[in-house]
């Protein structure tokens, strides 16, 4: 019985432990400063939108094709 109780206790402790570890980790983390952050956002944004515009161009080509075959 005692052993079973122990296990249940452990199971209940796991998430608490996890949250503690996780938040400690996040607090220890190195955070980007605003200059670094802006640079990253810019490069990701440019890449994302550029690829998106190319893809959208392909989708636009699709519209007349749909009219033709449907």
């Amino acid at each position: 019985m005692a052993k079973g109780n122990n296990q249940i206790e452990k199971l209940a402790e796991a998430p608490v432990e996890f949250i503690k570890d996780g938040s400690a980790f996040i607090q220890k983390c190195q955070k980007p400063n605003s200059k670094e952050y802006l640079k990253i956002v810019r490069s990701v944004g440019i890449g994302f939108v550029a690829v998106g515009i190319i893809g959208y161009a392909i989708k636009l080509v699709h519209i007349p094709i749909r009219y033709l075959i449907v």
Partner: protein
Amino acid sequence: MAGFRLIDVAKPFLPLLPEVELPYEKIGFDDKIVYTLISGLIFLFAQFPLAGISKESTNVLDPIYFLRSIFASEPKTLLEFGLFPVVSSALIMQLLAGLKLIKVNFKLRQDRELFQSTTKLFAIAQYFVLANIFIFSGYYGNNLSLTAIVLLNLQLVGAGFFVTLLVEVVDKGHGFASGAMAITTITIATNFVADVLGINQFPVDDEGHTEPQGALINLLQSLRASHKTYTGAVVGAFNRDYLPNLTTAFLVVGLAAAVCLLQNYRIELPIRSTRARGTTNVYPIRLLYIGGLSIWFSYVILFYVHIAAFSLVQLVAKNDPTSIIYKIVGGYAPVNNLLYVPQFPLSLLTPPKSFLECLIRQPLTLITFTAFLVGTGAWFATNWQAISGSSARDIAQQFKEQGITLMGRREQSVAKELDKVVPVASAAGAVSLALIVSAGELLGLKGKGASIVLGVTGTFALLELITMDYQQSGGQSALAQVLGAPGGSF
């Protein structure tokens, strides 16, 4: 002997399944970019409408609308299921092998080949099963003729087969990153641009007025339109629910910014060389150690749950509110003649259509949906980091080969020290991503929240690989010269 092994199932199919060859020689930087981009564009181009759908309107509507954008699927086109079977079979097979639930000896070339073919076979089988669930549920029309059923099967499974090969091209080293990741990122980027800047017009009322798809373009067009007042135009641009509106656009951009921030959270472990004295450096361990994969995994599970429910409710019980299955699982209510919105028990795992609706009608979803994403994400992250070839032990091995060690540690205890950091990082990262996704989804983004998170993490992974490759190739790229980039812009 070991008896039956799952990967042996693929043996008879081995000569039948076509396979993409590994590149004969090292592929150049430019070629890789072109391969990656073109596979994405071919995928986008393959969104042809299905032939053989009955013209009469059917009362079975789209039950998985909120899962579509994350798996790059488009309703009633060849890519009805998008990348879902490819992603799910790859993730599940690797998990099974990693957790030693199926026996694969990755040191043997034959076993590796068999494993690969099994994964492919599993994906194609899923395309087949999903296609027939949708066909027989009446999603493509009631009373389809036999020819129509065969035709639909051929189209859906054929397209799926083609997609698996397309993904394999990028996977096998012709392109950057994993094929599914690259293609999804490109599709998500395209959808984002279409939702914000799309100029294609849709008819919105009987008087022949049209509105563009893009939220921003819509605002500009409405402001100039003569049949709307100024305030009406602005309110409409933020509120319309039949096409993307500006509120969602802003939310999506906000989520993207949050993920960008998280992506740069890292712990920097000081390292030093064991060969040369006095050379020190840092080795970063990311918070988002496994990137967006945990989100993908959660959504794979979500997809299975909803497909199982859909086949039960629609195929067996015909969505009849009086049947037992409907009462246990929950049924579907048609909305806007477009979507099939799940009802009570099932709706616990469905992102609501709007935050207000969620609060008024079912506040429990707030808890269950978030808990589901967090739970599956954390479980996956903890297991995946151990089996994906970038676990603490693998990094320690790399350190040893490159002659570096952690500052103030002996070489033997490096693995132990890393083991304290890596699993925590990957689990904490997965949980924070899951929280961001559920915040977005519960505000009513209908899958766009999850997809933008995946899109941004995918973009990061791609950009990182591209930059690394660019530096290794010594900046010898015609593409970069044409674009006038000194290599710093990426």
